[in-house]
């Protein structure tokens, strides 16, 4: 499944970039994210609870940041297993285009699902993924209000 979009965010590029590299920010913004811990310079472990149609499951997996080109773009790539519910994997290419005090975030997502999730929920995956992406960016923008990198523990530079 492929999906793309863009979102104008009310914050300068540098701040958005920092937030995008901040596990606390990501945890607070990813819908259903229960845990997100840094395990290496650009790696995280995450647990996300998701529901697609009749299938709901907790996905445990790894998230990696690749092709980092600070403060402009990276690829965030992840893979999660949800037991009998199946698996989900994919990546998003994220690009930040500065525009004065605001930033346009452009993303393209490529995601794959398997197991029960695909078997029973496939017809709902697209809409579920779109909903999740929307929720993420809305939450992310909200959380950016009053965000200062200092509030975060170890934002990447």
């Amino acid at each position, binding site marked *: 499944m492929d999906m793309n979009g863009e979102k104008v965010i009310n914050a300068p590029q540098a701040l958005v970039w920092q937030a995008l590299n901040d596990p606390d920010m990501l945890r607070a913004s990813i819908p259903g994210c229960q845990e997100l811990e840094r395990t290496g310079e650009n790696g995280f472990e995450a647990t996300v609870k998701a529901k697609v149609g009749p299938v709901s499951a907790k996905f445990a997996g790894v998230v990696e940041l690749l092709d980092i080109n600070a403060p402009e773009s990276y690829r965030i790539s992840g893979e999660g297993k949800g037991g*009998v519910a199946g698996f989900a994997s994919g990546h998003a290419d994220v690009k930040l285009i500065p525009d004065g005090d605001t930033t346009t975030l452009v993303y393209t997502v490529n995601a794959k699902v*398997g197991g029960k999730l*695909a*078997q029973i929920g*496939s017809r709902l995956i697209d809409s579920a993924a779109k909903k999740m992406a929307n929720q993420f960016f809305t939450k992310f923008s909200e959380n950016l209000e009053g965000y200062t990198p200092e509030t975060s523990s170890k934002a990447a530079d």
Partner: protein
Amino acid sequence: MNDMLVGKPLKRKEDQRLLTGKGRYVDDIRRPGETYAVFVRSPIAHGIIKSIDKEAALAAPGVLGVFTGKDIQRDEWGSIPCGWVVTDRQGEPHKAVPHYALTPDRARYVGDHLAVVVAETYEQARDGAELVEIEFEELEPVVTLAMAMEGEQIHDLAPQNLCYDWELGSRAEIDAIFETAHHVTSLDLVNNRLVPNAMEPRAAIAEYDSGLDSYTLWSTSQNPHMLRWMLSGSVTGIPETKIRVIAPDVGGGFGMKIYCYPEETTCLWLSKVIDRPVRWTGDRSESFLADTHARDHLTTVDLAMDKDGTFLGMKIDTTANMGAYLSNYATSIPTYFYATLFAGCYKTPVIYSNVRAVFTNTSPVDAYRGAGRPEAAYLIERVVDVAAREMGMDPIDIRRRNFIKPEDFPYQTPVILTYDIGDYDASLDEALRMIDYDGFPARREEAKARGKLRGIGLACYIEACGVAPSQLIGKMGAGAGLWESGQIRFNATGTAFVLTGTHGHGQGHETTFGQIVADMFGIPIEDVELIHGDTSQVPMGMGTYGSRSLAVGGSAIVRAGEKVIEKGRKIAAHMLEASVIDIEFEQGLFSVTGTNKSVTIKEVAERAYVPLDYPEGLEPGLDETAFYDPGNFTYPAGTHICEVEIDPRTGVLEIVDWVAVDDFGTVINPMIVEGQIHGGLAQGIGQAIMENGVYDPESGQLITGSFMDYCMPRADDLPSFRVGYTCTPCTHNPLGAKGAGEAGCIAAPPTLINAIVNALDIRHIDMPATGEKLWRIARDKIAAQ
């Protein structure tokens, strides 16, 4: 003396138990000490297994063991066989790729069997299965037929994923005909992938008796002996005497339950390893993933005609999907059960076909109700309809012009088969009468006034049933003969057991075979009890598929009955103090010719077991077995006509009338036969307008994997049907019966698609012709006006 029962719509003997909840399906059976198996299935379509971590699962509560393909291989359990060798154009056998119960090396489709967890309870086994961690090196999946030959190679043995490239007929000869033909009609067709979906999911219980060193397997099988044979002869080497297979009540099969599957094979193996009974019951999600699927062809057909619409030659090019492994008969379906039917009801003199069978990362594909013959009938009856359109001919006239006529029988087709008998005009005439063909234009006008597009379509199908004459199929590559056994065992009180190697799973064998035997011996049907589905009780038999139970199995029973009568005459001669040649038998009475001295079959049966005064040489007992090998296939044929109405604003299709006129030869129980037609029609209509098995072309995930996405025909999708008969009795079996199980499913797809294209006035539409497709076409047409 009772009235003759054959030909009467007797109510079914089996219904009392099935209607009161007393049926016994595999999942209803409990065994003491039983354990539960749950399979760990591949979530990906294609990948090399790097590691399987069993530790967490083994530590889970109740888990008794976790096993993988390597474990089974260590015990030298072999590959599940494909029993039909198709020889390709180069004279080479098809690529017989291995198919292990648990795949030891690679996952080849979503649902492939990677490991099995056995536990004390089902819940524990399922929880355990969740804990098995498998790592893959993922490979590019090969999903669609179009990409199969270019994609990643799935089996080492099969370069380009090609199982075989097979042909029938002469390419040079057909090319010559096409060069000089007046007109050629060419059509590209998709025969959509189907998921059989018998309502009872597959299930198995295996039990090992260490004292006897023998196994019992309860399985949802259509042919327990064949299953035992494959397990013994091909997979394990365990003697057949040590494996007992029981197929109790089975909740529908439709071909999908013919095969030896990985799950039951694994359970059999586990029963000894665990040394306790092991049960597995599939859930519907597993059925979708790992039952055999069906059809799935891409075809181009070309029909050459002279200026009058006389068929000169037909050329067929098909790519057929085998799925990820070869199921037991997969190779034969798109060849010998398909291309041998391309003559249809017509005198097409030259036919050439080329079929390429390919592997893909999808569930294995094999027979499903009709098996090859629906695909053949669909392409013939579609191309003939398009030809009529292109030639400006009436679709009825073009068919009649080319029909094989009653005086032409026996008719040698150019595609191996010889039809013994038929009358295609007769069933066409009757169908036209029943539907009031001449009144159609008025009905169309009336519908138009209501804003509906009304269409009419017909198909004149033929099928080859009563599978199968062993010598003939042997020449085609079959690894076994398809004869059948029948046994009639009279008891001392005059009741009779009938034993058959066929298996009923909805067809009403207890009733139909009961009617035959009751008539033969003049005894009440209540005194006849059918035994089937147990390899320890029934003589070796070949099972139920290919509309063979009555034509082949029923014939075997008749032959056994004849032997019983022969034996009975000897006993009667002794009882009546006459000589055997003077004893005649009729309606349950043995009598001395020209006298009124007689004894009943009941008296003879009693004396058979109380031989206190037998003369020397007369053997006690009244119990005879016959094996019947048919001399030819049977050839049911007929005409179906339907009328549809399409609402151009919504695409909603309504089937407003359906007339089925079939020639099944002799009909034993018309009520049961009608039920077979209805059920077949529902499945054929499902294929034509609703059902479609779809894998995501990129990931190979089955995206029509539940009843929410795979569109099964429901009551409100279907009409009531009108059924009529013509009859030309089969010439070569003692019943004159041809078989009725598959006809509806074969006739329905072309009938319905022909009606839809007629309603929309278009050349072609691919199956399934869903409401959305119809709506788009109607919308574009309205826009173009």
